[in-house]
């Protein structure tokens, strides 16, 4: 018996078992529960009423569309602001670049909510009104580093000889960028878009604080329902969000396999 146990333990593949069991309980089961809850009526029977309610209630559906819009704008702004920054960073001397990259990442070590409240303070300080503008500024402010880092990573690892070859073959600087640099940086862009779009679509507290609770995002709607004991409806809304995220990641998965791996922050 004891011998069998030692034998079992000494096979390395059996070392994955505790984590597989853990994930089955804490990752897979909870997701299945979201699905079960969202197709249940309050009495526990199968029902589509939660989804019908979502479609028939203009408020939740509108919030949903509005949130996607805000997330898209934020992602676009992060890309427009972040790409040039990543490009410039990748042209710096490596030792200087690592210092500046560090400066870009540093603010993320401060609690998101504190940073958001600081943004609120900044808007107060400059006498700017809180609202949609503050919301978008705050989102861009919070998620810009997530766009810069993966793009920088890809650009920095790019083989310089490719650029030199293009130059030798007579490409203008613009052609070098559009034909060589940009296409090669697409994996970084894709993983940057994922890293910005996914969290922006699901934020809730940030929006509350930046708009004095005047603008509601989809995340806030979900949270309110869960807090008010409407678990089934909240689960259905979560499932809808999961579907959107599933679609986004399918959309980007094929291209970003390497990019996503390189996009990690450590």
């Amino acid at each position: 018996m004891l011998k069998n146990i030692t034998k079992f333990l000494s096979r390395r593949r059996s070392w994955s078992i505790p984590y597989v069991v853990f994930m089955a309980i804490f990752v897979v089961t909870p997701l299945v529960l979201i699905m079960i809850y969202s197709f249940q009526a309050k009495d526990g029977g199968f029902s589509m009423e939660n989804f019908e309610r979502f479609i028939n209630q203009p408020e939740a559906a509108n919030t949903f569309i509005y949130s996607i819009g805000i997330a898209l704008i934020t992602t676009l702004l992060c890309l427009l602001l972040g790409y040039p920054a990543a490009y410039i960073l990748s042209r710096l001397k490596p030792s200087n670049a690592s210092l500046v990259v560090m400066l870009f990442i540093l603010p993320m070590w401060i609690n998101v909510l504190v940073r958001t409240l600081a943004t609120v303070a900044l808007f107060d300080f400059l006498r700017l009104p809180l609202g949609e503008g503050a919301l978008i500024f705050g989102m861009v402010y919070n998620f810009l580093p997530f766009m810069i880092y993966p793009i920088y990573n890809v650009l920095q690892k790019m083989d310089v000889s490719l650029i030199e070859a293009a130059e030798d073959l007579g490409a203008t600087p613009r052609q070098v960028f559009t034909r060589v640099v940009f296409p090669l940086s697409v994996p970084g862009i894709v993983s940057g878009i994922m890293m910005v779009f996914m969290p922006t679509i699901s934020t809730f507290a940030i929006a509350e604080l930046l708009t004095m609770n005047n603008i509601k995002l989809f995340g806030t709607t979900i949270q309110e329902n869960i807090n008010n004991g409407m678990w089934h409806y909240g689960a259905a809304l979560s499932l809808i969000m999961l579907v959107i995220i599933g679609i986004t990641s399918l959309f980007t998965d094929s291209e970003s396999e390497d990019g996503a791996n390189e996009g990690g922050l450590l």
Partner: protein
Amino acid sequence: MMKRTISLAYLVLLLVMLYAPIVIIAVFSFTESKVLGNWTGFSTELYTSLFTGGVNNSLIDAIKNTFIIALIAASVSTLLGTVAAIGINDLRYGKRRVVNFVNNIPILNPDIITGISLFLLFISLGITQGYTTVVLAHITFCTPYVVLSVMPRLTQMNPNIYEAALDLGATPLQAIRRVIIPEIRPGMISGFILAFTLSIDDFAVTIFTNGTNGLETLSTYIYADARKGGLTPELRALSTIILVVVLVLLIVVNYRARRQTRRAEQMQEQLKLKKNSRR
């Protein structure tokens, strides 16, 4: 030259935008005023009251909870994730793909979904939410990152070293302890640090799993505070301290990394010189 100036100016502009709010917090941590943005003269009162417990105890409790939870969650995640990574690396291709796929779920899932799904799990099992559930939830979203930071070390490792250890008479457990663990230690350390910071910074998962018994971490404390209409002034001092500590740590790490690369370069040059002189 012109282009270079414009590029640098752009970077500086972005950094100013990123740091403006933080600078405001840091500056106003040196004044006593309740409202951020209202300068009432220089004072270190906020720092003193943060350390002498002049603040309501709930903030101190929240800070303690945050660190204890992060420490437990990061330690357990590192252990669980390292053991798992060693196991997963040895699985056959098909199974390994499935396990890796599930491992990626908590990373790709938005926090709010992870939070709600775990909330539903605890509700369904009838578990009262509190310390334990928060720790379990944090382990759930931290471990995948540990697995991801240990895994590359394992795949890059020469598999023959392990086999050689076995051939030389080591038991499998000895071989893992003496051969594999030293190889993957850097991955374990960065995994631990990552898990620790993720846990400290978490808000969305905690708020759904902390129950109704008044368990607060720093994040949920700040959230509740902000909803009541303002940041506890001492939090400005705390944020400033955290910022300075992190800044110093990063500079030290960066400096050491630079010194190491420089040393490596020097060694390479010396080697080159030796080779050349031999010719």
